């Protein structure tokens, strides 16, 4: 993200390396919005931090990685071992607790440790941990470096897995609604563009790798294509049923100490408006020769569903704007957090 708004709004990004520093930056109003872990957002609201979830960052896109030549073949083989997760308040942590319960393992039978995501592959390589469950590209990095192998992709054990969400400070939601809307709509359009074909994903890997993540584009190409649904950028509206499920699992596994109402930590109005706008943008042009009833393969003209989810794009847009490549005034993001 950078200064690329048609309306003149300026969006800048600041890179962090751990979630604790992101939390402090939100509290001190250094930043107005951030991508953070979904349960962390819930906990921050419980703690009185004035933020709300307005959109999802992606779906799926995490993996449980074990040592490449190690003996672990099933989750139960991890009994008595050490698993790293990105944060106590993460869906990765909740998923480990759920898998333990589903496999009939005692709550303390796996040592779950909190570790900043960039440190996971090195910790596995040095045998400090036996496995890790974290978001991409660190699982892919472990694979490509010959350190680890995938035991499970989250998409296969928790379909539509949610990791990071976009939170915005409440004062901005109240006073800068158009600015927040522009951000949400931009992310939503980027998601549709990414889902529109492998070539877009490869293009995104180049841009994001070189200018934002500062990671090898080849690594991100792998993440975005092996397999292509390893990370998904569709269905990003924050839905009550998804968050109710997270809340239930978080509380029952002891990750969160109590429930809070969906409305207290989610503002779905921005995603609903973004998706309504698309419906209008994707209406097919009137064509006198076209059949009155659209063929079944024209889903883009379908109205938004009640839950506010976006329709899938109408076939190949062809001239779709690459939202990542609009001329940028400030090429590199700022760097913050503990580096």
């Amino acid at each position, binding site marked *: 993200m950078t200064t690329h708004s048609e309306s003149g709004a300026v969006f800048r990004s*600041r890179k962090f390396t751990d979630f604790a520093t992101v939390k402090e930056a939100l509290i001190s109003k250094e930043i107005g919005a951030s991508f*953070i872990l979904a349960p962390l957002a819930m906990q921050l609201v419980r703690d009185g931090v004035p933020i709300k979830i307005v959109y999802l960052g992606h779906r799926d896109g995490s993996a449980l990685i074990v040592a490449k030549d190690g003996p672990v073949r099933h989750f139960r083989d991890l009994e008595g071992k050490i698993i790293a997760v990105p944060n106590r308040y993460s869906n990765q942590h909740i998923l480990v607790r759920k898998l333990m319960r589903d496999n009939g393992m005692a709550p303390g039978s796996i040592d779950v440790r909190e570790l900043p995501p960039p440190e996971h592959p090195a910790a596995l390589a040095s045998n400090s941990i036996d496995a890790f469950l974290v978001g991409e*590209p660190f699982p892919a990095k472990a694979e490509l470096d010959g350190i680890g192998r995938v035991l499970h992709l989250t998409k296969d054990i928790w379909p539509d897995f949610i990791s990071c969400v976009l939170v915005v400070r409440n004062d901005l939601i109240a006073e800068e609604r158009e600015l927040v809307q522009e951000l949400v709509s931009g992310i939503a359009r980027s998601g549709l563009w990414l889902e529109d074909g492998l070539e877009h994903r490869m293009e995104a890997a180049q841009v994001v790798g070189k200018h934002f993540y500062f990671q090898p584009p080849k690594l991100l190409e792998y993440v975005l294509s092996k397999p292509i649904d390893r990370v998904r950028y569709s269905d990003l509206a924050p839905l009550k049923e998804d968050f109710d499920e997270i809340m239930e699992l978080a509380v029952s596994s002891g990750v969160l100490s109590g429930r809070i109402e969906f409305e207290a930590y989610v503002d779905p109005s921005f995603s609903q408006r973004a998706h309504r706008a698309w419906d209008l943008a994707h209406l097919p042009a009137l064509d006198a020769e076209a059949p009155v009833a659209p063929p079944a393969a024209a889903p883009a003209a379908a109205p938004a569903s009640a839950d506010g989810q976006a329709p899938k794009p109408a076939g190949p847009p062809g001239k779709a704007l690459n939202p990542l490549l609009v001329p940028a005034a400030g090429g590199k993001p700022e760097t913050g957090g503990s580096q």
Partner: protein
Amino acid sequence: MKRKILLGALLWTLLITLAHIQLNVGWKELESQVLRRFSGERGELLVGFLPVT
């Protein structure tokens, strides 16, 4: 006499306002606020992220 008092009060208010902008607000900030309000220029948003999905 009344006119002198009125002029004095206005002058005093103007001086205090200028001093407040200089010392507490900053002319750059004032300029950007005015531009945002009257010329349609939009705001700025700083978004945090970790290089992880």
